[in-house]
């Protein structure tokens, strides 16, 4: 197979604002021209793609961005991923609310292979599962889940070799 031609866009290094306590793998890809801001205690897995070619990206505290995810804001308004969000493997995020493939601040949960359409607003505590069914999670376990997430991040801190200096500028 012939190698794919490299787009000029992929080479540009975006301005980054990284908190000191983040864990970011060396093979994560931060590209684009708009600023990328990453909050404290966030973990970026290897091969996650953050593309700020069309707008700025802001990621909150205590987030996990897994491998093979693509985060790319569609316009100059940019994209915000709230605190405590887990974006699971293979997720594609273009929306602004931090709709990943798992939990976000507003405490939503999107199941695997579910889709949220353009311009849709998902209320807090919504669970989207199966083939588009929705329900409101009234269990009130948000704090407990947040604690589990913090432990998860602690263990990833040991496992993933971090190299934030590569992305600093």
């Amino acid at each position, binding site marked *: *197979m012939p190698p794919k031609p490299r787009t000029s866009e992929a080479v540009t290094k975006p301005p980054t604002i990284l908190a000191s306590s983040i864990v970011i793998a060396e*093979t994560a890809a931060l590209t684009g021209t708009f600023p990328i801001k990453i909050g404290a205690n966030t973990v970026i897995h*290897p*091969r996650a793609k953050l593309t700020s070619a069309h707008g700025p990206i802001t990621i909150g505290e205590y987030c996990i961005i897994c*491998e*093979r995810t693509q985060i790319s804001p569609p316009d100059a308004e940019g994209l915000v991923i709230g605190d405590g969000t887990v974006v699971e*493997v*293979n997720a594609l995020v273009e929306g602004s609310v931090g709709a990943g493939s798992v939990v976000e601040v507003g405490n939503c949960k999107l*199941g*695997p*292979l579910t889709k949220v359409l353009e311009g849709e607003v998902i209320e807090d505590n919504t669970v989207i*599962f*199966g*083939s588009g069914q929705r329900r409101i999670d009234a269990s009130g376990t948000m704090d407990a889940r947040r604690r*589990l997430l913090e*432990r*998860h991040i*602690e*263990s990833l801190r*040991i*496992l*993933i070799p971090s190299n934030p200096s590569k992305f600093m500028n």
Partner: protein
Amino acid sequence: MPPKQTKGEYIETDTGNKVSRKSVILGSQNIILGGKTVIQADCTIRGDLRRTVAPGQHSGNVAIAVGRYCFLSRSSVLRPPGRTHQKTFSYYPMKIGDHVFVGEGSVVEAALIGSYVHIAKDCVIGKFAIIKDCVRIEEGTVIAPNTVIPSFSLVSGRPGVVIDELPETAQEGLELKNIYRMI
């Protein structure tokens, strides 16, 4: 001057594994391939997510064990499952048997997959799922975390449920020796 010899797409190991140069294998020291396994381009294997134990404790350092004649298609992901147990989060080893096919773009976070399992493309196998021998999983199936799929099942849907039984002769149809020879 003769043209520069182009490198083949696959690297073949001593035990007959064919690993694509374009695959993403992290933490290869924690991965065991049984032999004659094919790993295609863009396939991601997270061997770096191994068990975390308190320092001083002995830990088995195998994160992913794959049997013989397995076939991991393009863009598939193998990733050990993790959970919090007794206040510490840890990843747990993932074991895959022989003759297991993983389709394009499927994400596998199962704890155990038996032998002769066919996972079609764009499936998601949830964390700590257990899939026994001779199972066929249809395209686009999402298997919920902690699910146990019995032997000789045909699984489909979101969430994936057993919709039919496979005949006792299913094993022959699920052998992957021929695909291995084709690569």
